[in-house]
């Protein structure tokens, strides 16, 4: 049976994670993500799960990877400064295909920035924060309900593709309260990582046995000894510096995302069919955009929205198609201009692409979106 509950975004994140099977959380307190740690501390032991407050974010990320290697579904949560600290180990998880969920509740930056105020300054860091070419999935909710659903989806994607998944929230969504209809546990789709065949003679931890680019994953303690290293490695898991080994590994890792775009990419289109002006946005800003669209439509202005649920891999195709139809694309974001560059790269050069940027620790309002739309239309 489903049940309705009034909750905060951060609470929905923990509820969703536990429903998805999270049984391990390691973290370090930081506003505006702290409630995620606190609620994990309270709720995980109730289901036999484990919570640990580590000495810093680097350690938290390391502990999460260690726990996932033993087979537990593991998560950590942080905000800007802590997200920076986690990056080296996020790269380790990505290279070694260790499923894990990293929640980043964005606040104003850079540095300590605006600890209590919202921002969307980590669009690029979420993709490229760790060094080197690597696969990663980034999804971003626009409501409390979606935070619950995306926490589940983050685990599912991470387990399915053996890729770290970043749940990119912002302070508005994290602290907002909404009524959420929680589904009956039996209705929730849960994905678990695939395990090697028990009868396997010699297990190669990084061998693509099934030809889908995703090696089955044994756990420490399962009875099959194996090696995991942050060095480039071959299918046996041991280090190699051979060019063809590196090429195969990186191509396979990137291929896990590139060959599954349809499954991973998710977005919502609102009134885009006849829209001359399309707003491309995500997270809490999409709420202001939606309100603006409704008001503008009442005035007869043909405006629509593509709301990105998956940010990385970036939904290039829909942007490209839309840009061939629409005259203008407006990209409102709570930063100095990050997503807009990717939109520009994907869009048709004839389309007029305009940013709406606010980086003062305040949500972009519907009025600001409306004003921008009118300005763009009148200028044309």
């Amino acid at each position, binding site marked *: 049976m489903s049940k309705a509950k009034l909750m905060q975004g951060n609470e929905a994140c923990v509820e969703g994670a536990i429903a998805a099977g999270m049984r*391990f959380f*390691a973290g370090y307190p930081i506003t505006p993500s702290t409630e995620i740690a606190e609620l994990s501390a*309270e709720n995980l*032991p*109730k289901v*036999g799960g*484990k919570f*640990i407050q*580590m*000495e*810093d974010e*680097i*350690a*938290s*990320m*390391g*502990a*999460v*990877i*260690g*726990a*996932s*290697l*033993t*087979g*537990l579904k*593991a998560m950590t949560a942080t905000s800007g400064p802590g997200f920076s600290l986690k990056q*080296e*180990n996020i790269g*380790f998880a990505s290279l070694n295909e260790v499923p894990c969920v990293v929640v980043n509740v964005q606040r104003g930056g850079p540095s300590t920035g605006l600890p209590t105020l919202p921002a969307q300054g980590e669009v690029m860091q979420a993709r490229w924060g760790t060094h080197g070419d690597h696969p990663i999935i980034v999804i971003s909710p626009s409501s409390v309900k979606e935070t619950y659903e995306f926490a589940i989806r983050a685990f599912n994607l991470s387990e399915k593709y053996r890729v770290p998944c970043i749940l990119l929230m912002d302070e508005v969504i994290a602290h907002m309260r909404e009524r959420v209809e929680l589904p009956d546990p039996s209705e929730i789709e849960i994905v678990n990582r695939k395990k090697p065949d028990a009868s396997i003679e010699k297990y190669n931890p990084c061998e693509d046995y099934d030809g889908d680019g995703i090696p089955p994953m044994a756990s*420490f*303690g399962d*009875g099959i*000894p*194996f*090696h*995991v*290293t*942050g*060095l480039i490695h071959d299918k046996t898991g*041991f*280090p190699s510096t051979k060019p063809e080994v590196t090429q195969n590994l990186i191509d396979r890792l990137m291929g896990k995302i590139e060959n599954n775009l349809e499954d991973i990419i998710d977005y919502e289109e609102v009134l885009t069919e006849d829209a001359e002006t399309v707003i491309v946005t995500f997270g809490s800003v999409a709420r202001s955009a939606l309100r603006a669209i409704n008001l503008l439509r009442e005035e007869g202005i043909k405006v629509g929205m593509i709301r990105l649920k998956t940010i990385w891999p970036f939904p290039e195709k829909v942007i490209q198609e839309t840009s061939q139809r629409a005259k203008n694309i407006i990209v409102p974001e709570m930063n100095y201009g990050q997503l807009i560059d990717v939109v520009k790269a994907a869009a048709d050069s004839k389309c007029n692409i305009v940013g709406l940027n606010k980086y003062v620790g305040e949500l972009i309002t519907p009025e600001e979106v409306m004003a921008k739309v009118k300005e763009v239309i009148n200028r044309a």
Partner: protein
Amino acid sequence: MRKELEKYFRANRLPHIWCPGCGHGIITGALMRAIDNLKLDKKNICIVSGIGCSSRAPGYLDFYTLHTTHGRGLAFATGIKFAKPDLKVIVVTGDGDCTAIGGNHFIHACRRNIDITTIVFNNNIYGMTSGQYSPMTPKGAYATTAPYGNIDRNFDLCKLADAAGATYVARSTVYHVPQLIKLMEKAIDHKGFSMVEVADICPTYFGRKNKLGSPVKMMEVLRDSAISIKAAEKLSKEELVGKIITGEFHNEIAPEYTEEYEKTIEKAQGGC
């Protein structure tokens, strides 16, 4: 290699990367001997390391092995042990890996008294990056980044571990292998956080930079400067300069982290 130890090594991963005369192989061998003496089930042991010459050891050993990021071995190991307390978890780490970049993780692992054994390969230098000083390089010694002599003061790692809350703390050297094996056995057998610091040699960098001569000469220095805790008690501070005090510094039973958390689970689930 002794026949009975062969099963612990990944023969196809050998030869190892270590320089001739490096002490890392001796420590790795002693660790395998200790595991063998304790008759532990190989399939229940996880060996974790950070980055450095010493941290390459797990790759040669046939257990669940994890070669992590520089200094972070204990953080990953904490996740493993906490998630799966049945596993024996052993961390192998260099003096730089453990006390510089990993220093914070080290003191907190000591403090939690989580049941992990840490073996510190202390060659007083950063070997892998070719000879820079570490927090364990003695004052006055030379390193590529201390061309005029090191002015940093070094840690006494056993005192540090003890003060931070480790419940088993010992030190030996690569010259004193029988003692080293014994201390490793006790550390692995100990419930709680245990640390064995091993005075080690890096002839390639520390030895050359400090004109210490051949690996054999460096081993002789270890032989001559090692002194037991008891004997050290009778010496003055001045007399102790340059000495390596060996033996068991601390051995105490205290509540272990993962067991304490089991009680938390009981409480959360409404038990008393």
